[in-house]
């Protein structure tokens, strides 16, 4: 089965530094999601793309986080500057069209530690 690719797998950074995460969804999937999962909690949606357009970024801390999906394929999530509270697992997911009973396919995530 095709997979959602994410890199890096782990990232350690110091606070105030910039970090970036990359996601390559399953080929042909129009909808791409970035979730943040804090230890002991469920994933929380940060941003949702439909092709190259942002559908929902209501939970994205826009003063420090940015996300793009320029050609409607792969996507980058950036944090600048990183803060201690940003330590979490960042999960990327994709689905064919989004909504309804459609299944989300998740990548293995990027584990971020901010020191």
């Amino acid at each position, binding site marked *: 089965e095709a997979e959602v690719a994410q890199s890096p797998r782990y990232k350690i950074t110091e606070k105030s530094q910039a970090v970036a995460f990359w996601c390559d969804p399953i080929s042909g999937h129009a909808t791409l999601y970035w979730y943040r999962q804090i230890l*002991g909690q*469920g994933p929380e949606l940060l941003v949702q793309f439909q092709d190259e357009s942002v559908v929902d970024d209501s939970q994205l801390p826009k003063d420090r986080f940015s996300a793009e999906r320029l050609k409607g394929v792969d996507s980058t999530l950036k944090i600048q500057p990183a803060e201690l509270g940003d330590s979490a697992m960042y999960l990327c*997911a994709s689905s064919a069209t989004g909504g*309804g009973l459609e*299944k989300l396919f*998740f990548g*293995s*995530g990027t584990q971020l530690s901010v020191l």
Partner: protein
Amino acid sequence: AQSVTQPDIHITVSEGASLELRCNYSYGATPYLFWYVQSPGQGLQLLLKYFSGDTLVQGIKGFEAEFKRSQSSFNLRKPSVHWSDAAEYFCAARYFGNEKLTFGTGTRLTIIP
């Protein structure tokens, strides 16, 4: 506001025993309901999903879930657990007209010999 509640943070069961993980959803209308499983350090995998029809749905790995409208519940069950079922289980809901998938806080399942 849309919310999903998983009352049990951690459950321990013996291998071969039956399992039930609880999930309750809020809001008036019946949402699309899902159960996902997450192994340590991994992404989430869909176990099963429900919106309408037969209230007992079958999923992968021998799991099933029952929708009960009167209790706003969608509990996950397995008749006999295997050591490989040890993982974190998340209930999630998506409400009609809103594409956002809302997750519960998860239930960590430990299997003892």
